[in-house]
């Protein structure tokens, strides 16, 4: 069986090379049979990678420890879910997972677009398969997951494996990497369409329409991956943080930011025929940041608790990245004539300008994070002195940028396309602005002195108000005409333009998340060593350590504290934070106890026993409003799904010139 996986990888590599050659020559020489052959090679590559993946999964589930990968990342005591999750728990397996996901995307893209975009598809296929080929080189020749231990040649048997990293043995971690990878890998599709469009010199923006939904789905997966990672960190790392500005966390955030910029600026191209070069840059940049993130995680260039073992694999990524960037830059520069803007800015105070500022701030955020992540490497290269760049640096830089972005989230959608009159500005903003200022004054009068928190809460109210007004006006008009109530009017309004109103819901989700972020300004915590029966006091809470228990399971030993909390004298349900010690890897983990409420979380970590073994070390935290981060994420996800539903009324962008009148107009026609 061990040969099956390795042979499948080699065959898939050969087929990917064939698919590249057949699609390029078929497209160039207009040979349909070659194009068709390349499409079949894409399907066959998917089948072979599925076979290779199935082989590895079977080895993991059955505990075939002759495989070096299985021995390093699985063991017999692990639950089945985590044996399966070990597929992406190590370097070689995760690269195979990357390859398999890409082959799935490639097969679906070819299957659904081969007849719709005959001219562009050969080059889309070639771009997808170039990326596929690179990862297959990694799988087959650099980080092969089917390497065998020398059983029978020095090693008599391998009874058990090392097991998966204990920190990864958590339900959210079984879902977080696949989601993140679906995002990383998925951005290859819009990139492939962009390259196909450049190669074929397509003057229009059909590729934009085709890939918009791909981009949105991929963005959604990336968002899910990032938030699941944050919720995992919150629940597992034992100190209550959900974002530590770790290089690998940053690497996942970078393509999310550039993709968010693209999802906004793409509207400029759709509606006005503007920003074509910029959109090419954003799509390409997002793909490169995905590859860069993968490189960062695997090269060992920066130290991270998330990173895989240091290896020479980074050089391959640098080479691939350099070639792809050079090729893309050449194509964009060579095709500038096909990317000319079709319209002009009519007013600086317009939706178009707000999108430009939105893009500027999103990319500034991406640059700041990239810069902070790489600055230790740059500094060491320049001065020879090692430095660290951690959360205090990123928070100092990113909080103002984040608040400005929140402000733009509120004002941007209320600017009209083409131009916005002063009267319109006053009508749209006077009450939200007054409300925000009033809230800031009230909070200040109430004793809040944290400037960032004051600004965040005020801006949250401002943005939420503007979104509410947008829904209210439209819903009221529909409800009045149809004779229904406001709620049904809002549903109908959203159905008529899912993209616009789904987008507002996404913005509202972001507002809720910012409320959660702002709450962190008021965190409380204590760390105390207490004897059984003693009390800890934290804010409104009194925590009585009632007992400490120990036990043993197949996979780990555990020790847990029984805490009896009360709030303002009222008894609450008992909490049992646990400390685990995984036997195979000899590593400890925390299984914290969290009492989640909309106003605050009570978060208790049992850090173990004191040196003399007589007292429990309890870390207790109160995190105000943190639940709104997860609630906001759910709202954001709902909004994104609404955006993906086709609108009842489909807007058609008509870019026409009418003699004697202004150019550029948008007409909405009934489907």
């Amino acid at each position, binding site marked *: 069986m061990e040969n099956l996986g390795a042979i499948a990888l080699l065959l898939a590599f050969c087929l990917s090379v064939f698919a590249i050659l057949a699609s390029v020559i078929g497209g160039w020489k207009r040979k349909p049979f070659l194009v068709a052959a390349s499409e079949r090679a894409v399907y066959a590559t998917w089948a072979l990678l599925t076979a290779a993946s199935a082989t590895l999964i079977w080895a993991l589930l059955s505990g075939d420890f002759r495989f070096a990968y299985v021995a390093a990342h699985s063991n017999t005591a692990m639950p089945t879910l985590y044996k399966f999750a070990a597929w992406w728990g190590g370097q070689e397996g995760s690269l195979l997972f990357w390859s398999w996901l890409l082959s799935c995307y490639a097969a679906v893209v070819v299957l659904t677009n081969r007849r719709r975009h005959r001219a562009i598809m050969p080059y889309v296929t070639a771009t997808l398969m170039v990326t596929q080929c690179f990862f297959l080189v990694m799988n087959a020749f650099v980080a092969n997951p089917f390497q065998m231990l020398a059983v029978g040649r020095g090693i008599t048997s391998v009874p058990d494996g090392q097991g998966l990293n204990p920190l990864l043995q958590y339900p959210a971690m079984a879902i977080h990497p696949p989601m993140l990878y679906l995002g990383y890998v998925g951005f290859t599709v819009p990139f492939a369409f962009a390259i196909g469009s450049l190669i074929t010199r397509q003057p229009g923006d059909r590729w934009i329409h085709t890939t918009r939904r791909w981009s949105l789905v991929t963005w959604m997966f990336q968002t899910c991956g990032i938030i699941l990672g944050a919720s995992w960190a919150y629940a597992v790392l034992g100190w209550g943080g959900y974002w530590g500005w770790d290089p690998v966390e940053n690497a996942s955030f970078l393509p999310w930011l550039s993709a968010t910029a693209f999802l906004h600026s793409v509207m400029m191209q759709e509606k006005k025929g503007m920003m074509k070069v910029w959109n090419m840059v954003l799509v390409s940049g997002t793909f490169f940041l995905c590859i860069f993130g993968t490189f960062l995680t695997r090269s060992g260039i920066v130290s991270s608790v998330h990173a895989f073992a240091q290896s020479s694999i980074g050089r391959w990524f640098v080479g691939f990245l350099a070639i792809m960037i050079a090729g893309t830059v050449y194509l964009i520069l060579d095709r500038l004539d096909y990317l000319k803007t079709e319209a002009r800015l009519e007013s*600086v105070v317009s939706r178009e300008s707000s999108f430009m500022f939105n893009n500027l701030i999103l990319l500034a955020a991406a640059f700041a994070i990239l810069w902070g992540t790489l600055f230790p490497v740059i500094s060491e290269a320049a001065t020879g002195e090692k430095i660290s760049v951690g959360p205090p640096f990123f928070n100092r830089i990113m909080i103002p940028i984040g608040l400005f972005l929140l402000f733009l989230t509120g004002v941007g959608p209320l600017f009209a396309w083409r131009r916005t009159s002063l009267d319109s500005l006053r009508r749209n903003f006077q009450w939200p602005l007054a409300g925000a200022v009033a809230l800031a004054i009230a909070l200040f009068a109430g004793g809040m002195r944290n400037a960032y928190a004051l600004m965040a809460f005020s801006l949250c109210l401002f943005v939420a108000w503007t979104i509410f007004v947008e829904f209210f006006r439209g819903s009221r008009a529909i409800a009045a005409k149809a004779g229904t109530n406001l709620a049904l009017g809002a549903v109908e309004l959203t159905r008529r333009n899912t993209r616009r109103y789904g987008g507002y819901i996404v913005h509202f989700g972001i507002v809720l998340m910012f409320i959660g972020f702002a709450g962190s300004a008021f965190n409380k915590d204590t760390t105390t060593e207490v004897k059984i029966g003693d009390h800890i006091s934290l804010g409104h809470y009194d925590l009585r350590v009632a007992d400490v228990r120990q036990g043993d399971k197949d996979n780990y030993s555990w020790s847990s504290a029984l805490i009896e909390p009360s709030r303002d004298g009222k008894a609450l349900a008992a909490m049992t934070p646990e400390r685990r010690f995984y036997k195979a890897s000899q590593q400890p983990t925390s299984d914290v106890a969290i009492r989640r409420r909309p106003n605050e979380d009570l978060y208790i970590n049992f850090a173990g026993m004191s040196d003399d073994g007589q007292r429990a070390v309890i870390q207790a935290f109160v995190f105000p409003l943190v639940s709104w981060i997860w609630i906001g994420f759910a709202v954001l996800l709902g909004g994104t799904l609404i955006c993906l539903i086709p609108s009842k009324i489909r807007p058609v962008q008509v870019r026409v010139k009418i003699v004697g009148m202004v150019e550029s107009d948008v007409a909405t026609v009934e489907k």
Partner: protein
Amino acid sequence: MLVAAAALMLGQGGTPLENPRVRQIGDQLACLCGCGSSVTSCNMLHCHFSEPARQKLLTMVNAGMGDSAILASFVKDYGPQILLKPPAEGFNLLGWFMPFIAIAAGLVAVWWFIQRFHKPLAAGPEPDAATLARVERELETLE
């Protein structure tokens, strides 16, 4: 026996973290064990770096040393990499200012784009009162 041994292994010796100033200063110091966390939040079992660092912090705090003196002492012992926030001096200034330089460059680019592609709206004939009234009526009935 196994349970007792495990319980002993789980011991973390958290005493220094009971002190709020230790936690606060420890949050500014990088744990150099490779965990990527701060001295306060490192969660590694019997960490060879964060545990002695917390004890040292507690000793310094109890001795009445100020925050900057404590940080300076750690920098002297471990180099500037111990600080999670690089000091704003020398080459590090580039680290602090570059994001804002990038924003400024971006603003210049946006200004250039606006200058290049800005075309003021052509002035059309002033609409008469009847047209304005009709537009108002239609706007009223617009969904």
